[in-house]
């Protein structure tokens, strides 16, 4: 290595191997982080990205190989160690304490003190104000985290990491929960930081983002570095090919054509705002879905999309009103069990919190909403249960060592398939999917898109809420755009473009 390159590389992993019981998470990985650049790391879930980051940030200490910081070997014994070496990390999962204020969260564990060892709140608030202003976030440092939207919380996490003045900042999918506006702010900030000499390691699934902001892209697959490129010298297709290890056919398989009649009609869907009088979270929304049609619903964070699905599904019976017509029949739904009886299934946005019983196994999760049919004379027949669950494991290609595997041990994509299986087991005519591919790898995404296509071909009606434009454009037959609780626009598949949709979505 010549001297010039030495100066250019701030952080390096050399031949790093990390084993977990039963899996090799990283296999002889070498990865160079270039100084003051945006170094993107991409790979499917389980490729080893997070493991590598956790070694860089001192979470894992027992690995083989070397980590070099500014050319000298380092071995962090804990996360604080890494912090004091100026490596900051923003995890994908938010690690904030909800009942504490923004400032208290940012300075948690290192609060500024007065000479008498009390917390110096004035100083803390002042410093927080400055940080928030840099991030273009107009919030009171005294505000509790619980009152913030997810996107705002994400930015507080970023502020927290920045408050440590890191030289290297690792960001693990920082945009997975924030709106496009917030993403734009974040990207400006990243530019600013690199200009100031801060090095960024950026992990993401979103291809367009990587091309927008990164200087270099490194692809991980199955615990190995597959290839590394300068961003300007590579195409999206090539990256995808490297990620999945084979040329990817069309991401959005589309074999169905809509021909059916109207199946599902929503009129005057209204949900009052929980705290502000006279305001609506969902404001008199109407739409229809035909038999065998995919209706895409797009909107920014807080547009009321999730709340609308919840209202239809009977989750807010006392605060909402809606007229639901299924196959021309008016249907009164006041709770989820009523919705299921009416033939509706709902895959919620948050898998772990609302979709799965994490400590239960695959079989029990799949059968949960349709357990009755496994009964024989009042008792559950294990044989029937396994039969039913087994069918879906096979049909949806759920990768699990057995039906008895706890769903907590499955990958995100397979967990999502388990939830879909649970709903398919109820024989629904209408499926409501809220961000069905959030945080899952590209192969699993493709499989889910293919499944959606297959289901509508069998005359199901599907409503997909998504904040990923390519996804909405790729799978929908029609697209409805939401903003501030209202339906703003509707486009047919042919007329829809990213520009038109974004224009309608911005309030």
């Amino acid at each position: 290595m010549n001297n010039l390159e030495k100066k250019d590389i701030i952080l390096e992993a050399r031949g790093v191997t990390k084993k977990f019981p039963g899996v090799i998470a990283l296999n002889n990985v070498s990865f160079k982080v270039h100084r003051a650049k945006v170094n993107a790391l991409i790979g499917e879930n389980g490729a080893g990205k997070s493991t590598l980051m956790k070694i860089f940030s001192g979470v894992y200490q027992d690995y083989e190989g070397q980590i070099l910081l500014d050319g000298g070997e380092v071995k962090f014994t804990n996360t604080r160690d890494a912090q004091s070496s100026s490596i900051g990390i923003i995890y994908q999962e938010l690690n904030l304490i909800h009942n504490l204020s923004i400032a208290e969260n940012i300075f948690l564990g290192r609060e500024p003190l007065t000479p008498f060892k009390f917390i110096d709140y004035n100083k803390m608030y002042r410093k927080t104000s400055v940080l928030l202003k840099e991030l273009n976030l107009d919030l009171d440092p005294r505000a509790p985290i619980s009152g913030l939207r997810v996107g705002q919380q994400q930015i507080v996490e970023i502020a927290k990491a920045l408050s440590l003045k890191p030289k290297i900042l690792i960001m693990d999918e920082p945009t997975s929960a924030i709106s496009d506006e917030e993403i734009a702010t974040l990207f400006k900030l990243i530019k600013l930081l690199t200009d100031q000499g801060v090095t960024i390691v950026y992990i993401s699934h979103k291809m367009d983002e990587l091309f927008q902001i990164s200087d270099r892209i490194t692809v991980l697959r199955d615990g190995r570095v597959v290839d590394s490129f300068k961003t300007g010298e590579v195409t999206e297709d090539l990256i995808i090919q490297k990620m999945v290890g084979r040329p990817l056919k069309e991401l959005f398989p589309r074999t169905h054509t809509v021909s059916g009649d109207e199946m599902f009609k929503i009129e005057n869907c209204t949900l009052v705002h929980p705290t502000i009088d006279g305001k609506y979270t969902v404001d008199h929304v109407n739409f229809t879905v035909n038999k065998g049609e995919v209706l895409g619903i797009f909107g920014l964070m807080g547009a009321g999309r999730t709340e609308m699905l919840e209202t239809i599904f009977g989750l807010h019976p006392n605060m909402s009103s809606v007229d639901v017509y299924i196959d021309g029949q008016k249907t009164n739904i006041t709770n989820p069990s009523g919705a299921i009886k009416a033939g509706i299934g709902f895959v919620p946005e948050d898998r772990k919190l609302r979709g799965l019983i994490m400590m239960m196994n695959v079989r029990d999760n799949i059968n949960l909403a349709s357990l009755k049919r496994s009964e024989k004379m009042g008792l559950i027949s294990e044989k029937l249960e396994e039969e039913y669950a087994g069918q879906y494991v096979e049909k949806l290609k759920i990768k699990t060592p057995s039906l008895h595997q706890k769903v907590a041990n499955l990958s995100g994509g397979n967990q999502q398939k388990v939830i879909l299986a649970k709903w398919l087991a109820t024989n629904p005519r209408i499926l409501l999917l809220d961000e069905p591919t959030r945080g899952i790898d590209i192969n699993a995404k493709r499989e889910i898109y293919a499944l959606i296509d297959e289901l509508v071909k069998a005359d199901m009606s599907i409503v997909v809420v998504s904040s990923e434009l390519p996804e909405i454009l790729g799978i929908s037959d029609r697209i409805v755009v939401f903003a501030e609780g209202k339906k703003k626009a509707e486009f047919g598949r042919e007329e829809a473009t990213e520009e038109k949709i974004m224009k309608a979505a911005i309030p």
Partner: protein
Amino acid sequence: MPQNRYKEILQKSQSLFALLLMIVLMTILTDNFFTTGNFWNVLRQISVNLCISVGMTLVILTGGIDLSVGSVLALTGAVTAGLLKNGIAIEPLNILIRYNTFGAVSAGLFLGLILGLFNGVVITRFKVAPFVVTLGMLTIARGLTMLWTGGYPITGLGKFSVIGTGWFLGIPLPVWVTGIVVGIFMIIMRKTRFGRYVYAIGGNEQASHLSGLNVKRVKIIVYAICGLLSAVAAVIVTARLDSAQPNAGISYELDAIAAVVVGGTSLSGGRGSIAGTVLGALIIGVLNNGLVLLNVSPFWQQVVKGFVIIVAVVIDRSNKSE
């Protein structure tokens, strides 16, 4: 068989191993432990706690807690005994209703069910923490017991006491009662939708609700069952002593929680089993019995028991975090 099933079995047999170890130890250390008489003695002693613990297991599996079991036991026992002995006088009409054993026991069980139902309805309808509601019920039921008995024991219950002292097919009747309760609830928890829903709700209440489960109804039934089983335990206690004591059942809730927790059921819900609770109750029962036989002072017995509970849960925890 999948790997995690092996692990599960291994972990379950861990408490079984602990129990066997204790049995061996006690057998070596004392002369009277490993005898037929003492065997039935231990089982009879744990029958009351185990009966309550079965109900407590269900409640804890949903992520709740029931602190009122001891007071409910006292009240239902007193009501059963009082009806049996004195009947109910409706003075304005000058009527005295007398009860036979079946009637008095049914009335006690019904009351237990109602008290549990009350707990469940308040917890689900008004969204009050189970700890608070059942703490209130603990005081209410105790107060009602004092009002009903005037603070004096109700003694001399005639042939009713056979339930506590009798034998059938070589097995003490209290052991029969609890054995049947355990059997029924093992089947319910493993083989019925209700049982599965209890686990699901304890594991993730929101996801269960979204899957169309009637979360409130399941929870109400669980608390009603816990009240009912407290009343079943009251029948055993009252019959065995041939009297209803106004201060019966004090701190029984703690013994029940201890059996459940030692048996590997998670206090946060969703994970555990009736079989585990049986083991937990046996471990605590053998420990109590052995310490008595060893002539350990009752004060030290409490200290030892406390440590055993903590150690059991610490071991359980470290297994799970692996």
